[in-house]
């Protein structure tokens, strides 16, 4: 019999807010040392009351717009109770009864994945086990950092679809400034079952908890598929609805202790947090602050004269497109900027193994300006850019210090070409006898004499004319 996979995802994403969900402690990127980003509120001390972070609400609404959701303009926070040392108040504030976004969808290829809901909640802390003393230590830095949980409908039919969806989700969330999606900031629970192809009923479901790497997710799904099909076909085990975890060392999933999962969370509305009313005006303001989608951005770039393929690369990465927009806004020609970013900047990123473009747009604009106005040569410009990637240099000062900004003296260039040709009669003879390589040697000598300041195209041209005499 042929079997079909049925998968639904719960994806937890840390929001890019400056502070936590219910207090003013620093948000996702602040903590450095354990417990250096903790206050009485997020450590659950008696006497503290929660105050909602407005920015987190706005980011959740943005995520809802992005995933074509209906936004609940009346939304509430609820308490979910369970005991665990990483949860200081022994309850998590989440949205159980009135989640902020519902009924959305995402297109992946020719498939549509339904989004059941997006809700806001606070993250828990982290437990660290110290083997040396056989004790567990707790770090509350992550406690109460805002998360959204994006709950899909059980619409995935393969691990490939899951990975495509997660990649798309990640780039869209980054692009819209909703989440940095840094390592570990996007975590997934995978609900998986199999059924005979064509069947409408769902099989027995397993939930694999808390995975953050795409390759683990893929491997776990493939492992589960085999386990489920074996159970149905060869009766290797009786499937039961359970929670499992992926063991990356043993390369398989294991059931979690029932005790860890069979909790009654005793949800109820948080009386300390008034319902949040998102009125039409606020909703429209959030909508207006949405960045253009990658697709819209790409179309805009082609209208600026950028080739379609290049426009797509620029638009697909938030950092590239932001830098491009900023440099163009500073008055540089779009085509020139595109070429600098896609060739030179990306070359440097590859050389330095950087995942994202992190340079000052104003400085890049200055380099391009110097080259475009012939104040420095393009090779000199590249040299400045490489230096800029390595440290935060001052562009003009750097050119001066390295003697790059000499206005190219055409007379001096011609003189140099003629002098080098005159000093090397053997090479000239070789060239004339058909050894074209000799020209390259002469070109190299001239460039060395000019210390890289001349325009290579012009020099090659002058040299050619000189040799043809």
């Amino acid at each position, binding site marked *: 019999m042929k079997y079909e996979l049925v998968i639904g995802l719960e994806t937890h994403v840390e929001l890019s807010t400056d502070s936590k969900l219910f207090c003013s402690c620093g948000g996702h990127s602040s903590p450095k040392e354990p417990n250096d980003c903790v206050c009485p509120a997020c450590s659950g001390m008696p006497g503290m009351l929660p105050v909602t972070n407005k920015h987190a609400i706005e980011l959740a609404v943005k995520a809802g717009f992005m995933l074509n959701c209906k936004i609940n303009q009346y939304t509430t926070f609820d308490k979910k109770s369970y005991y665990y*040392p990483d949860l200081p108040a022994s309850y998590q504030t989440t949205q159980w009864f009135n989640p902020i976004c519902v009924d959305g969808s995402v297109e992946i290829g020719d498939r549509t994945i339904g989004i059941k809901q997006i809700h806001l909640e606070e993250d828990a802390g982290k437990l660290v086990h110290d083997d040396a003393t056989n004790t567990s230590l707790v770090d509350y830095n992550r406690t109460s950092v805002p998360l959204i949980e994006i709950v899909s409908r059980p619409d995935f039919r393969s691990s490939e679809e899951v990975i495509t969806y997660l990649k798309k989700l990640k780039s869209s969330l980054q692009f819209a400034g909703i989440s940095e999606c840094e390592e570990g900031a996007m975590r997934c629970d995978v609900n998986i079952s199999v059924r005979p192809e064509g069947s409408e009923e769902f099989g027995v479901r397993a939930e694999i908890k808390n995975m953050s790497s795409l390759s683990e997710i893929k491997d776990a799904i493939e492992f589960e598929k085999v386990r489920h099909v074996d159970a149905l076909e060869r009766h290797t085990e009786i499937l039961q609805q359970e929670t499992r975890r992926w063991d990356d060392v043993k390369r398989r999933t294991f059931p979690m202790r029932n005790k860890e999962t069979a909790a009654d969370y005793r949800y109820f509305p948080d009386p300390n947090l008034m319902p949040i009313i998102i009125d039409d005006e606020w909703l429209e303001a959030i909508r207006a602050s949405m960045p253009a989608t990658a697709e819209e951005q790409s179309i805009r770039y082609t209208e600026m004269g950028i080739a379609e393929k290049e426009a797509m690369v620029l638009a697909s990465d938030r950092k590239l497109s932001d830098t491009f927009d900023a440099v163009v806004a500073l008055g540089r020609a779009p085509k020139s900027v595109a070429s600098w970013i896609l060739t030179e900047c990306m070359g440097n990123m590859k050389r330095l193994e950087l995942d994202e473009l992190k340079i000052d747009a104003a400085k890049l604009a200055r380099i391009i300006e110097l080259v475009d106005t012939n104040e420095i040569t393009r090779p000199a410009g590249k040299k400045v850019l490489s230096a800029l990637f390595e440290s935060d240099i001052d562009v003009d000062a750097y050119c001066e210090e390295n003697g790059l900004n000499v206005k190219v003296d055409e007379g001096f260039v011609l003189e140099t070409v003629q002098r080098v040709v005159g000093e090397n009669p053997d090479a000239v003879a070789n060239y004339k006898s058909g050894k074209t390589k000799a020209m390259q040697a002469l070109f190299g000598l001239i460039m060395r004499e000019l210390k890289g300041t001349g325009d290579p195209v012009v020099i090659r041209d002058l040299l050619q004319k000189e040799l043809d005499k």
Partner: protein
Amino acid sequence: MGYYINEIKSTGKIAVDDTILVKGTPATAGSKMLENFTPLFSAEVVEKLEKAGYGISGKTNVGEFGLDLMGETSYFGANEADGKLVSAAASLVKDGAVTAALNVDLNGAPRRAAAVAGVDFLKPTYGTVSRYGVIAAACSGEQIGVTAADADAVKEILTVIAGHDDKDGTSLPAEKYDYEAVEVSGMKIALVKELYDLASDEVKANLDKYIASLKALGATVETVSLDCVKEAQTAWQILMSAETTNNLSRFDGVKYGHRTADYKNIDELYVKSRTEAFGFLTKATIIYGSDVLAKGKYESCYDKSLRIRRVVTEKIKAVFAQYDVILAPACKDVEYKAYDLMDSFEKVFEESVFTAIPSITGVPAMVTKGVQLIADSYKDNVLLSIAKSVEGLEA
């Protein structure tokens, strides 16, 4: 047991319940669980009082987390006088040792205490006084109020502590309240038949005397039927217990508060720490509160209680459409003897029928001369005016 769990300043004139935080002074909430807990910040009300030049005399003994009749469940011992229960805060006020005391009213304890001691207590409109810095139990109804010898002293302190606080998400927007005095003559007052009938003869006699005073001031008093007192009582019991269960779950022995000396794993740490450190009434409330929130019971218990809260609110609004205030007993008896604390859950529940309506709806309630006056939201000034006028009759 003395009246203070921790005395702060011998010259201070305001005492605060040990459920209200004062930075640097241990705050026990009357529980062994918090015997060694010292807060890092002060409650907003304490900040406001200190800024206005009032000194805090100390932290008064309270029943564990304020859940009981009037302090008898404190881990540090009940306050008694001549074999009768008294409350620490009300006794200090009555003796003139302080000019006022701040108390957290979550299930009527300070109202009963004031009624028994013969002093005034006002539980103001929910949201007018910040709850920031209260060791929380039942957030949706608990409110800091003021105990003092007379209505003017209550008003003086309330004027200082009331007003918006950004740190409390349920705090109402007004920055200040002036509690303007109003004329009592011509007021219409509704005596709640169902509650009057439940009171002892001494309490009834006291109410009759108060009614005579109101009439002497030119007010009219009519007996009305309010057919939701039992429903309000049960619904508040459910909401209060559920919220308390949730709020006290933070006391798990991991971070602060009592931790058992000996445990093998995390579950044992939780169970032993909590078993050792909570008293009977707290445990009973936690079990009751866990049960009403359990899967399958939420709709019929918690959610239904939320709906009852709305119905009760509508019913008393209907009364306030015709009457200026509601008059009712604050408790069943004029005095309470020490009792077996294993009976506390039933005993407190039984008494809460008198105090539940203001607790569940958030309207203001004032105890004066042993009776309870209840007004519509923001009409705290009407309560103060009536109390002051009746007090003035005897002067």
